[in-house]
């Protein structure tokens, strides 16, 4: 019974991880400039990798394999913000201008967000 529950949890996690990874990569292709693409890339590093490795943790059980999976995720969590920050500041000092929404569209979006917040 426990085995079955672990199996189901593991496949839910792995499918969720693949989903978030695909969405993050679609974001990298769709987004208009390098800074907005960084947000999408962050999804792959945190949620995609996290859920995928969590699913594999359920498969591994309490062994040394589990420790290695946790270590891989710890490395990813420690290194991902550093490389993101390095990339953003390198792009800023390299003179890449952040993309801003054209005026007419951003006005519409501001009102939309305002309605959601209130």
């Amino acid at each position: 019974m426990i085995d079955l529950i672990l199996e189901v949890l593991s496949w839910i996690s792995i499918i969720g991880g693949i989903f978030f990874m695909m969405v993050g990569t679609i974001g990298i292709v769709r987004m208009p400039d390098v800074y907005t693409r960084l947000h999408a890339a962050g999804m792959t590093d945190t949620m995609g990798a996290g859920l995928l490795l969590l699913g594999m943790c359920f498969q591994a059980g309490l062994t040394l394999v589990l420790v290695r999976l946790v270590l891989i995720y710890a490395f990813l969590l420690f290194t991902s913000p550093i490389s993101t920050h390095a990339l953003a500041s390198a792009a800023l000092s390299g003179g890449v201008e952040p993309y801003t929404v054209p005026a007419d569209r951003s006005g519409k979006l501001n009102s939309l967000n305002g309605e959601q917040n209130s």
Partner: protein
Amino acid sequence: MLRAFGLGAILFIFWLLLSGHYTPMLIGFGLGSCGLIVYLAMRMDVVDHEGVPLQLGGRFWMYFPWLMKEIFIANVNVARVILNPRLPISPVVTHFKASQKSDLGKTIYANSITLTPGTITTNIQGQDLEIHALTLKDIDGREEDEMDHRVSWVESGSRGNS
């Protein structure tokens, strides 16, 4: 000196977990390599409150589950933005004030902001953080204020002990 011993102990536990071979000779090699690395780290002068932040202790691990919850919520929000056919983004660059005293606390805060999808720290000058946000909703300030308080709480463990 306490930090050096702590670093050596952590490295040796790390070695034991990665190795999986427990014969006296191999454990001896493991101890020797851990000692060598601690010696090199002391020569490089990185065994201090920033290189081996033992003073944070358990407080960081009490902050961590909350951070993971925030990361999950932010991920779902960014996924909805990306999958929306109209791609409703409104990128902005704003500034936040960090209330942490030490560089270590500011680094934890800035990296927590970067780990949460939708916001990226691009620059830190003094107490001023430059944030690039994907949508205006991402920087309404509530999560960031709470994160700021919690990171200050994590950091205050270091001031109380040392």
